[in-house]
């Protein structure tokens, strides 16, 4: 089988932990939800066992509109892991959620769910741009991606 075509290197899948699992379960249903304290209502990110404001261990997963703005972004160039080097340079954005401003999610800006990491023209990637979550599978996990509200 020496002449079998090489499999394309996979992107990393999120390494889901106990605290984060509900986030990914909701994402698989196309919902962007963030952890919030069920006692005092404060949202928190990344998810954790108890509330830093009131110490309650009771949490809920609050649905968001999936809307936000680009707070910052970078454009990595190689050397990178092979799957990422093959896609580089690509923007990685940090999205501040409209419904929970201290929750800033790292993600990829694309023209549509599942599109290439570099599908949005570079001049359209700007701090302050409004974005909307869409969902696509990556390494067996459904992850939020981001499209421009005004493409």
């Amino acid at each position, binding site marked *: 089988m020496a002449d079998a075509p090489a499999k394309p290197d996979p992107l990393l899948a999120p*390494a889901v932990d106990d605290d984060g699992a509900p986030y990914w379960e909701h994402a698989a249903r196309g919902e962007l939800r963030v952890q919030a304290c069920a006692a005092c209502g404060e949202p928190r990110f*990344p998810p954790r066992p108890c509330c830093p404001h009131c110490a309650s261990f009771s949490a809920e997963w609050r649905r968001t509109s999936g809307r936000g703005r680009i*707070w*910052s972004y970078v454009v*990595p160039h190689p050397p990178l892991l092979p799957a990422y080097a093959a896609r580089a340079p690509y923007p990685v954005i940090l999205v501040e959620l409209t419904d929970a401003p201290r929750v800033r999610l790292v993600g990829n800006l694309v023209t549509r769910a599942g599109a290439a990491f570099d599908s949005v023209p570079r001049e359209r990637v700007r701090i302050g741009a409004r974005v909307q979550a869409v969902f696509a599978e990556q390494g067996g996990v459904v*992850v939020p991606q981001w499209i421009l509200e005004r493409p």
Partner: protein
Amino acid sequence: MASLKDATAIAGIGQTPFAKQLLESEKALACRAILSALHDAGIAPSEVDAFASYTMEETDEVEVAKAIGAGDVTFFSKVGYGGGGSCATVGHLAAAVATGQASVGVAWRSRKRGSGPRPWRNTSAQLPTPAQWTRPFGLLRPADEIAMLTRRYLHEYGATRDHLFNVALACRNRANQNPAAMMYERPLTRDMYMTSRWISEPLCLFDNCLETDGALACVVVSAERARDCRHKPVYVHSVAQGLPAQHHGMVNYWNEDPLSGPAWTAARQLWKQSDVTPEDVDVAQIYDAFTSLVPLSLEGYGFCGRGEGGAFTEGGALEIGGRLPLNTSGGGLSEAYVHGFNLINEGVKQLRGTSTAQVPDAATCLVTAGEGVPTSALLLRAP
């Protein structure tokens, strides 16, 4: 309350050569640096009874102690968060010596990051938060994580790449005076900087520290003992660690104010315990894994106001003769990147008056560990 102020001193410093590749093992390099520091202090290895290093240090105290011939060791400590731990190694030894837990402490860092693997390439031993929330999206390396904060910093405060260049240039100019520096014979120009390849926009090649094989160590003893050692003592005037509320190392994206990091927390504690203020600092060794950490640190340690760190670098402020001569051995950007330990040893050289880029009559030196991670800082003073 008991105070660490001037209770201890750095009595000896040692280092190996710095290079992209050294042939000896990290363990051998650690032993060479430590023995060199003890020789510099004039203290026998059998007198060493305390050790401190980084959690990322791969040679442990047991190996080092038996190799150098230490006696009974009664204090040993490791500090976490990569380059954030550098100054804390000295701080932990200072606390141990000042409280009588030990009498001769050795802090060290040995690393073959030049010829060894890049930690971010490891996909089987990732830190849990980045592994879940940031790395899958292509934010893979420390440079990518800090570039995110850098872009926001430039946007929010109107700082420019020229400001980052000022940092890179000051470090390179000092390295050009330091025969031990990896970049000794390699001058940097603005044109080279502006046309260099990107690593992670907005950070280019020259915004990133070197990849170095090398080791350094220093010896901490009581101030009284230090006065009988070979060199002029360099007092540990103040020391602090800093982990701010709701901070997250490297990916500090999830609080009210991500651009105000551990430097602010460490600085409050550092100055509170000190007799001096930022205006009294003659020379600073500021952790420079990335150029943008310097303006952030200048703000955090109180040399200028929020958002003024970029402008502070203008007009040669960081050069010899400027407002705050910086990283006078070349720093992590141009001498060697050994998790910031070379900044500690260079602080000692400045206060001994033996730096290759000596600031005239330097009496007070600030040394900082990594900004952007749980950090630490030292104020060193000459007698």
